[in-house]
């Protein structure tokens, strides 16, 4: 892979004698979507605050494109577009006026660039309305637009899908995909929801109690050749099956490769089993997440 865009080196944060982030180290490569997964209170926001220079780092260092966030603030922040927690914008201004505010703060942001960014997040129709009339999804998109103005190398978004409905979440997800594909940006997103992360990210770091527990490529889970498939069947009158399966409520689960699925359906039908539904079971990552976090809990205790 390419160059590291963000590097955390032994980052520790202590607030009032309490270790909130404990010796966190990882790197984020060019063009990847990096997920930051952890239960509430794990320290995701705190880490992101340190990355964007909103909080002092107790020890260790954070480099953005090789620039130290604390010592070379302006140079480092030039490469970051971020939203920490909710995208709070000036409600009494229109979307466009909000963008102008941020455009004025950075040299070389043209009107053309603003229009392009607005187009990108799909707010062209409403951009001249006051922000207080926006829905949460639109605010999120305006927040996204606001951090894209200066073409940053890396976007840092704290819980960008928080409070959004599925359509809104999907929108954000599609936008992030487009950003990494078309502009080669890296994206860091945090979330406590695993299912979301699974769909968005290339890699996921799991943190708990301020400690890094695991970093995994999402690919590893999703493209596993064998997967469990869920067959909703008439379980009462199940004849003997010469295959290994697991009975779950009103259904059976069979581990199969994708190619084998039609054959299995055929087989079950031949046996006279009535099939109501067939779907892959994709909870491997969730299992893994629960597994590692509970292990961490025990370890912690």
């Amino acid at each position: 892979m390419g160059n590291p865009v963000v590097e955390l080196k032994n980052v520790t944060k202590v607030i009032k004698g309490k270790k909130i982030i404990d010796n966190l180290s990882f790197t984020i490569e060019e063009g990847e979507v990096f997920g930051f997964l952890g239960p509430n209170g794990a320290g995701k926001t705190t880490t992101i605050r340190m990355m964007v220079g909103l909080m002092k780092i107790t020890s260790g260092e954070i480099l953005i494109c090789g620039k130290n966030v604390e010592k070379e603030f302006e140079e480092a922040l030039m490469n970051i577009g971020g939203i920490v927690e909710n995208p709070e914008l000036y409600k009494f201004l229109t979307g466009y006026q909000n963008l102008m505010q941020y455009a004025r703060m950075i040299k070389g942001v043209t009107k053309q660039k603003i229009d392009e960014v607005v187009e990108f997040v799909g707010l062209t129709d409403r951009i001249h309305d006051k922000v207080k009339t926006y829905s949460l999804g639109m605010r999120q998109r305006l927040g996204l637009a606001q951090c894209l103005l200066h073409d940053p190398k890396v976007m840092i978004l704290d819980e960008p899908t928080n409070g959004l409905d599925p359509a809104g979440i999907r929108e954000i997800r599609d936008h992030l995909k487009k950003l990494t594909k078309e502009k080669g940006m890296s994206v860091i997103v945090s979330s406590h929801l695993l299912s979301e992360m699974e769909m968005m990210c290339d890699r996921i770091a799991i943190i708990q109690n301020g400690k890094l527990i695991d970093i995994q490529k999402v690919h590893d889970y999703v493209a596993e050749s064998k997967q469990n498939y869920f067959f909703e069947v008439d379980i009462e009158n199940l004849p003997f099956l010469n295959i290994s399966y697991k009975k779950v409520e009103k259904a059976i689960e069979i581990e199969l490769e994708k190619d084998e699925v039609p054959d299995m359906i055929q087989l079950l039908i031949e046996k006279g089993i009535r099939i109501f539904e067939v779907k892959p079971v994709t909870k491997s990552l969730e299992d893994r997440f629960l597994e590692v976090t509970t292990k961490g809990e025990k370890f912690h205790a």
Partner: protein
Amino acid sequence: MHNLIVNEWINIFKRPGTIVMIALLILCVIGMAILTKLYNHHVHSEKIQWQQQVRQEIKQDQKQLSETPQTAANVKKDLEQKIAVNQYRLDHNIPPVKESTGWTFIEDCSHLISFAGLFTIIIAAGIVASEFGWGTVKLLLIRPIKRYKILLSKYITVVLFDLFTLAIIFVVSAILGFALFGTGDGNNVHLSYTNGKVVEQNIFLI
């Protein structure tokens, strides 16, 4: 830096609260203009002999001066000055300005400056605090701009806002004053007592 100040300026003026403040200032000036107009009317209808009145005043002040004990030096000095100014009026035939002109109206309106100061204080108190209230401070502080520049631009904006409110009072009262009361007729000389002498002054030099 200049752009940061533009940003702050826009932020202040896009809020309804600020517009209300400016409107209040202008209303105050208009209110004073109405009151002054009514008072002027009153003065016109009286039409007294000013020399006689001034002479009476001098007599009264001299009596008071002789009764004042030596220890009240300040009071004595004030009275002496008043007598000197009044005597100067009689000698040079300068009637006291009773009737308002545009110039005196501006002077009256200068009392509103403390009102403007109050508004500036409100703006100054909010310019950093409300960014925290709105949560916008997070987006502001993660710009690639040093913190001191952001704070400095906020400070400069507050100073500019203060100057702006003063300018509003001055300009509005000048326009109203000259339109309603005229520039006066050369009798509007202001007399003051400096270095043991009575001098004639323009209102701007007070």
